[in-house]
């Protein structure tokens, strides 16, 4: 049961990431692409956690934390650049 659920979940996440990449490629404006990139980050956290479940280890936990933090800071920096033309004033 758990294996089936894991496979379904993995498939859905991978499909979600594929859709994000489509939006990233065709997004008409910069904020669209930024949104797609941010969602891609979040989905990759899910992928890493599912990989940890699949391999039954907790080694990848730190990688998930790092991705979460870098994704947030990166998105904030680009937003700020688009808003004010400057990141640190």
């Amino acid at each position, binding site marked *: 049961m758990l294996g089936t659920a*894991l496979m379904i979940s993995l498939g859905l996440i991978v499909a979600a990431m594929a859709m994000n990449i489509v939006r990233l490629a065709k997004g008409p*404006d910069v904020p669209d692409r930024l949104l797609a990139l941010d969602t891609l980050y979040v989905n990759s956290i899910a992928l890493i956690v599912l990989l940890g479940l699949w391999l039954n280890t907790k080694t990848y936990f730190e990688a998930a*934390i790092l991705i979460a933090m870098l994704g947030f800071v990166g998105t904030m920096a680009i937003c700020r650049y688009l*808003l004010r033309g400057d990141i640190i004033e």
Partner: protein
Amino acid sequence: MTFTLFAEGVVAFLLVAGGVFAFTGSLGMLQLKDFFMRLHGPTKGTTLGIGCILIASMLYFTVTQREFHVQELLITLFLFITAPVTGHMLAKTGLHMHLRFITDTRGSLPELRNEDVGQNRVARPAKARHPWRTRRRSLGKPRLPR
């Protein structure tokens, strides 16, 4: 035995629910018509999806290894705190760049003043103090940062 089976069912349900939520969030981002509508999918759907998957992972490791694993709570809380902030900033960026929205948008979009979207510099009081020199500088009138 039954308890393990029950926990397994809960973990499987949370995994599938998380996958479905993340999937619909991304689907909404792909197919909705303008930027502000697309923003709704990732900020809500994807965040809750990841939350479900992280809680499933927490439960799974707690049951199988018979000790508390609560580290995933850290990522869950972090995501739930940062996702609205990201959404707010992205919406602000979209307003600032005058992205077009679909024509039957209801309500009145009020005109934005330049300070509101952050185009002009904003006067704020210089309140930050030195970390250990605690003598308080006088808080004069607000001055423009640099």
